[in-house]
């Protein structure tokens, strides 16, 4: 594959796209699929064929359009968005289209709202626009040009230089500078090096990675290829959750297509660069998101982490230097190389560059996927983009970072969303789940929910995490049963401190975060439970569930 061949594929595809005047894009990502979008697509296709509109009208399946709560979503020519489309609505839509009438009013979703206008799409630029199962469409959208340029015109050091200059930080949650990680692996000595894409999106409430993989899988492959070239790796793995069958299917298709075009395999683009990618399916263990546990799992073992150092960059998979990045991190790489590191560094805040994809969920009007520049305030996220809390309820807290993060109250709403600010407030950026809670949620119950999660997911290797999470969960249970004494609270605080500072890996070290952050901001609720046997939200003390 040379640059000219790539351009030729892109031009052919663009011409064929330009030949149809109207484009009906139906979202076929997991959210809309569970709202019958596949049937909607089939009915539209049949309707177009029956009416003989095939010449000027093309129906295609695309990735996620973001507003998952209003599925199934269908866009017409990228400027009209239909929401809550059912198969029965196809006739009306095609009638309007055929007669050149204005769009069907009852289905139109306004796109001049902050939900759409406040977003800045880099990672999601192709989501909802291209067909994720066709490599030609990705190429027509400038796909793989960054790879070809990197391979033919840049040295590995120059690639790393661009990534370092961009200021990109790991999107998996911890925010380690990507350029630094790459150069460490590049400098490491080994007989073979590996690149691993961490797609084990275990945080409950986060679905960004799944969406990227379902909507634009080639972008992740291209990012991995560029990374492999930069660090000198020849083999790669994508570790993806078995719970994401659609993402797995589309990745498999993408890998096969890239291999066929010679973008994966030996002598890529006529250079001496070889790279092969294989999928490894996770089997439902949250701890496998931790990099050393993930490596153990790829090696076919139980996902138990080991102490670091040595870091995987020096001794990773099979003892060889290994680069592990998150899906979203890899997805940022092609645009960074296309537009230059400075372009990316101009977006965001001083220390957190670029954009971040968030999954908005919980008690909020607009649930779905959004990509915003770093530094946006939580208030904008919740009330403008999210559209506020529905049913006239009051906002209580926003939870970021999943079981390793924390709950932030209304006082924190004006805080910018970046790695440092969130950490200062006692939460973390995490992989990007953002769950909004209203007055019907009891914060002690939420803390118990997360502790139950950490307790069940603890791998059992180190004592503080294995026993500590169990004890903390027991204490929280006593509190939510309204049977706790003040000394229980003191013990809970002591345990938080102990587990945080003595656990082996990130899971245990961050397991107390939900408790610590709720203790910090919602101490009143704990007090009410213990001193007055009262749960303000009315959740606790009744039937004990889960």
């Amino acid at each position, binding site marked *: 594959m040379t640059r000219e061949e790539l351009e030729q594929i892109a031009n052919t595809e663009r011409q064929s796209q330009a030949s149809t005047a109207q484009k009906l894009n139906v979202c076929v990502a997991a959210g809309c699929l*569970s709202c019958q979008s596949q049937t909607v697509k089939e009915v539209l296709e049949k309707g177009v064929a029956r009416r003989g509109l095939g010449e000027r009208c093309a129906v295609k399946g695309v990735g996620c359009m973001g507003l*998952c709560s209003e599925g199934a979503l269908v866009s017409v020519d990228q400027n009209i968005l239909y929401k809550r489309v059912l198969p029965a609505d196809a006739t009306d839509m095609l009638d309007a289209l055929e007669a050149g009438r204005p769009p069907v009013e009852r289905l139109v979703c306004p796109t001049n709202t902050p939900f759409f206008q406040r977003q800045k799409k880099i990672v999601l630029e192709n989501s909802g626009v291209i067909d994720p199962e066709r490599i030609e469409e990705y190429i027509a959208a400038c796909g793989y040009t960054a790879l070809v340029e990197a391979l033919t015109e840049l040295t590995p050091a120059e690639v790393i230089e661009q990534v370092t200059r961009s200021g990109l930080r790991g999107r998996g949650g911890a925010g380690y500078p990507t350029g630094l990680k790459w150069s460490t692996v590049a400098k490491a000595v080994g007989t073979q090096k590996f690149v691993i894409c961490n797609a084990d999106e275990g945080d*409950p409430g986060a679905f960004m990675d799944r969406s990227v993989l379902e909507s634009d899988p080639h972008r992740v492959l291209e990012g991995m290829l560029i990374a492999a070239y930069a660090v000198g790796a020849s083999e790669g793995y994508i570790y993806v959750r078995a719970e*994401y069958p659609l993402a797995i299917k589309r990745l498999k298709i993408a890998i096969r297509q890239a291999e066929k075009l010679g973008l994966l395999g030996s002598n890529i683009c006529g250079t001496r660069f070889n790279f092969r990618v294989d999928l*490894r*399916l996770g089997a439902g263990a949250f701890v496998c998101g931790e990099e050393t546990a993930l490596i153990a799992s790829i090696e*076919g073992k139980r996902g138990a982490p080991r102490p670091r150092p040595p870091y995987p960059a020096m001794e990773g998979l099979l003892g060889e230097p290994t680069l592990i990045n998150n899906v979203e991190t890899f997805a940022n790489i092609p645009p960074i190389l296309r537009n230059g590191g400075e372009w990316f560094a101009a977006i965001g805040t001083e220390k957190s560059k670029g954009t971040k994809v968030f999954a908005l969920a*919980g008690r909020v009007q607009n649930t779905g996927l959004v990509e915003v520049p770093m530094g946006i305030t939580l208030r904008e996220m919740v009330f403008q983009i999210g559209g506020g809390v529905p049913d006239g309820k009051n906002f209580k807290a926003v939870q970021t970072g999943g079981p390793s993060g924390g709950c932030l109250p209304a006082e924190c709403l004006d805080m910018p969303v970046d790695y440092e600010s969130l950490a200062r407030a006692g939460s973390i950026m995490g992989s990007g789940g953002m769950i909004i809670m209203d007055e019907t949620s009891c914060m002690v119950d*939420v803390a118990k929910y997360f502790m139950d999660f950490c307790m069940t997911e603890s791998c059992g290797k180190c004592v503080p995490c294995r026993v500590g999470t169990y004890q903390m969960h027991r204490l929280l249970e006593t509190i939510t049963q309204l049977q706790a004494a003040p000394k229980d609270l003191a013990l809970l605080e002591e345990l938080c401190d102990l587990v945080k500072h003595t656990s082996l890996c990130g899971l245990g070290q961050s397991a107390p975060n939900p408790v610590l952050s709720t203790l910090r901001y919602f101490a009143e609720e704990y007090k009410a439970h213990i001193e007055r046997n009262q749960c303000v939200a009315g959740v606790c003390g009744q039937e004990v569930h889960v």
Partner: protein
Amino acid sequence: MPVSLSKPVAPSADKRWKIVDATMRRVGQHSRGLIETLHTVQEAFGYLDETALRYVALSLRVPLSRAYGVATFYHFFTLKPAGEHTCVICLGTACYIKGAPQLVDTVRRELGITPGETTEDGKVSVLSARCLGSCGLAPAVVYDNEVAGKVSPLQLKEQLSKWGRP
């Protein structure tokens, strides 16, 4: 114990073992392929029983304890056969906030089982999931591989009674 270096013989003439053998060949009969192989066994047979674990362990030359350790470590693997129908209730944060605990209560009231169990007549298995990633549609339930969104206790009850009928 004598160590046999020849390839172990499949537990039965069931054709599905050929699929399992193919996976093991693809991973080069290496212990690294243990998880991949167990995925294939579960896909083919629905669950992992002792016979399967012994066969896989012997073929990939790992101690049975390690195969059992891996099979029990990961939540995705199940050692018991599933019921005729499965119902997976998502207990991710968004679903939890939006009423998944009530769905668990409904199951307990209607079928007398908790997630992870199967009804005595083998009709329905109820499982819980950490997060299906369908947070936009919370609370989500998967009925026999079909994801349903914004599920109310009443809808769940109706589906369960539909399955309960002969």
